[in-house]
């Protein structure tokens, strides 16, 4: 059964994929639907949703369009989610692969290093990094990458360790393939599946992390983000619940979609083989 068929069998994964595509579309099309900056005041403040034509999600305390903010926020969230995940992978995969393949002292040293970073409370460290380096797109991506790479390293190390003692890898040593070639052509290709699954989950948690930082006021001050909107709506919860509600729904749907897609990938890439043995 091909990969796509297996993926499609998981209904949840399909739903997730659709939602994700919608979010990506929203991000891409935001400048077309709402060409003016979401920071601009467009009409009366505290407009409830559907109260006025064209402002379906209402407006906030400063008369800004909530729907515009939500769509523009999608761009930021997806961007930060992707870039920080890629960065974390660039750090974590090599560390894990080296530790797993060479073992011994290298493994010990790298694992102590990884454990250290895992012991530190991730969110607190992210706050400290962004606060001290001053909030900006770069400091946020850096902070998220720094707290996200340890689980990747652990995963890759575990996979490489188990693959290293797999007989076909030993066979590759025996027939005389060079070590770098073995790592790149025999070992790593078989780790792509779990890394991909983990990557989709990492994007999800990166988005959660970024929105939490924005909520606390540590977001990039030039960017309208979902977290910022939720934080800004805090003071008027009873009167204007929609200011905090809709951005939250956006985060929820995006993260949910990523989780569903991740699970679908997991099922598709690791099918339970009921073929062998008898």
């Amino acid at each position, binding site marked *: 059964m091909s990969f796509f068929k297996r993926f499609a069998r998981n209904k949840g994964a399909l739903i997730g994929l659709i939602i994700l595509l919608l979010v990506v579309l929203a991000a891409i099309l935001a400048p077309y639907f709402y060409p003016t900056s979401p920071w601009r005041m467009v009409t009366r403040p505290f407009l409830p949703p559907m109260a006025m034509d064209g402002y379906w999600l209402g407006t906030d305390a400063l008369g800004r369009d909530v729907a515009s903010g939500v769509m523009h926020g999608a761009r930021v969230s997806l961007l930060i989610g992707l870039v920080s995940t890629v960065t974390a992978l660039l750090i974590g995969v090599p560390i894990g692969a080296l530790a797993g393949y060479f073992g011994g002292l290298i493994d010990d040293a790298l694992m102590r290093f990884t454990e250290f970073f895992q012991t530190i409370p991730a969110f607190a460290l992210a706050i400290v990094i962004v606060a001290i380096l001053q909030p900006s797109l770069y400091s946020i991506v850096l902070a998220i990458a720094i707290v996200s790479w340890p689980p990747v390293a652990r995963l890759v190390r575990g996979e490489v360790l188990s693959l290293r003692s*797999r*007989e*076909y890898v*030993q*066979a*590759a*040593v*025996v*027939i*005389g*393939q*060079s070590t770098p*070639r073995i790592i790149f052509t*025999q070992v790593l*290709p*078989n780790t792509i599946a779990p890394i991909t699954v983990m990557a989709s989950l990492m994007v999800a948690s990166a988005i959660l992390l970024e929105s939490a930082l924005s909520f606390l006021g540590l977001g990039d001050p030039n960017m309208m983000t979902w977290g910022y909107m939720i934080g800004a709506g805090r003071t008027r919860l009873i009167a204007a619940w929609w200011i905090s509600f809709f951005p939250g729904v956006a985060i929820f749907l995006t993260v949910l979609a990523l989780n569903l897609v991740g699970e679908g990938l997991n099922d598709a890439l690791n099918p339970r083989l*009921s*073929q*062998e*043995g*008898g």
Partner: protein
Amino acid sequence: MSVLVVEKLTLALPSVADRKHAVSNLDLAIAAGETLCIVGESGSGKSMTAHAVMGLLPKAVRPAGGSIKLAGRELLGLDEEAMRSVRGREIGMIFQEPMTSLNPVMRISDQILETFEAHRALDDRARRRRTIELLEEVGLPDPEHIARAYPHELSGGQRQRVMIAMALALEPKLLIADEPTTALDVTTQAQILRLIDDLRRRHGTAVLFITHDFGVVAEIADHVAVLQNGICVEQGPAEEVLQRPRHDYTKRLLAAVPSLIPPPPKVLGDAPDALVVEGLNKTYGGRGFFGGSRRVVAAEDVTLTIRRGETLGLVGESGSGKSTVGRCIMRLTEPDGGLLRVGDLEISAMSARQFRPFRNRIQMVFQDPYASLNPRRRVGRIIAEGPEAQGVSRRKAEERARELLDLVGLSANAADRYPHEFSGGQRQRIGIARALALDPDVLVADEPVSALDVSVQAQILDLIQDLQKRLGLAILFVTHDLRVAAQVCDRIAVMQRGRIVELKPTAELFANPAHEYTQQLLAAVPGAGASRARDRTTA
């Protein structure tokens, strides 16, 4: 009086399976105090039959007809609660894998007590007393200590004894044993078989014993039933089926079991030494700061030579170090010391990098046909990778791959397919082709047939011997199976706890084993004492 009567039992498999029924129209009967062995290869349905009697079939498999009667009482169709009370009290069962068959977080005594509790038998004090008695009865030394222990503190053989104690705790009428000795060392296996036989005699229990090993059948069976693809092809008293088999399949299976009588020795003339090993040492562990209590001497002062065209067997039980020696010779694991020479090349003096271009001289065939081929590579690529790594052009390497596939008995277009499309035996042929792709002088075969069915084993062994004759290979054959060693090896080295205790030409070793351990090993091979008289008690 028959304890167990199975009539026309049929078990249906789900539609995705390769056949409709796991078992069709099966008839069996066991009398009290008797042992019935069900023999078959993997997929024959023998294990399913055992599970059906216990009512422990997997959800996907359902009884589709027939009856199972225990002491006259029909078991099929009983509701779950009634079946639960039958299990453990009237039927006891032991399984194949001692390492995973006991709850790891529960003490041994608690696990035995559980059986009593489940059937509300005896009062508290009597239960504890009985537990200790049971542990004694199954031959465990210091039963008080074992009772307080956790499963991971016991060896495989000890755990299997505990399983037997639990199964027989309430003196059931029938004991079902599903390949209970397959995962054990040959000497431990012999002890467990003897134990089961003793207990059977003493308590008059009927025993249903599932196995794939005809040697075991010869040791303990009163009656035999041979299963092929879910159908019983032959059934009868053990001696008759073993000595005068009637069905073709039975004859084939029996013929495939390697005899313990070695064939006449090869003539090697003045063939040169292909592999020389002197004083090989390897010790694991001992790294920790807080005491090196984990040091294991895997190989100590191992010395052997193999000539061109010769096969040397390296025989031992688990923990003997035979696999370690094989891996050290391949330099998959670096030995701690010793001389290694392939032909005129002293490889022990080289670093790993220096050795790499010479790796073509000595190649390896691995044990697990399912794990030794990269599942994401086509077969042709797998075989061609070796020559390519040594500098041969891609085209030539792939041509060679096709030639080799032909040589090992597969069609050349297998090169375009993936490993999962092949059976275990075929994959092992591919593994052999890969090893031969580099034109080695020496071949190290690490249990190459242990994971294969007995009928396939014979084919692969024939292939290896044929190739050796044609190519003049020197082969180091690592195995735990003495029968295989008897047929395939010219000389045999017996290993125990890291040392070679005896090294002799095969015929001599079997006729006059000098070392005590060799004698134990030979005596423990099931079916070895074909003329051994067996006690029978009729109920």
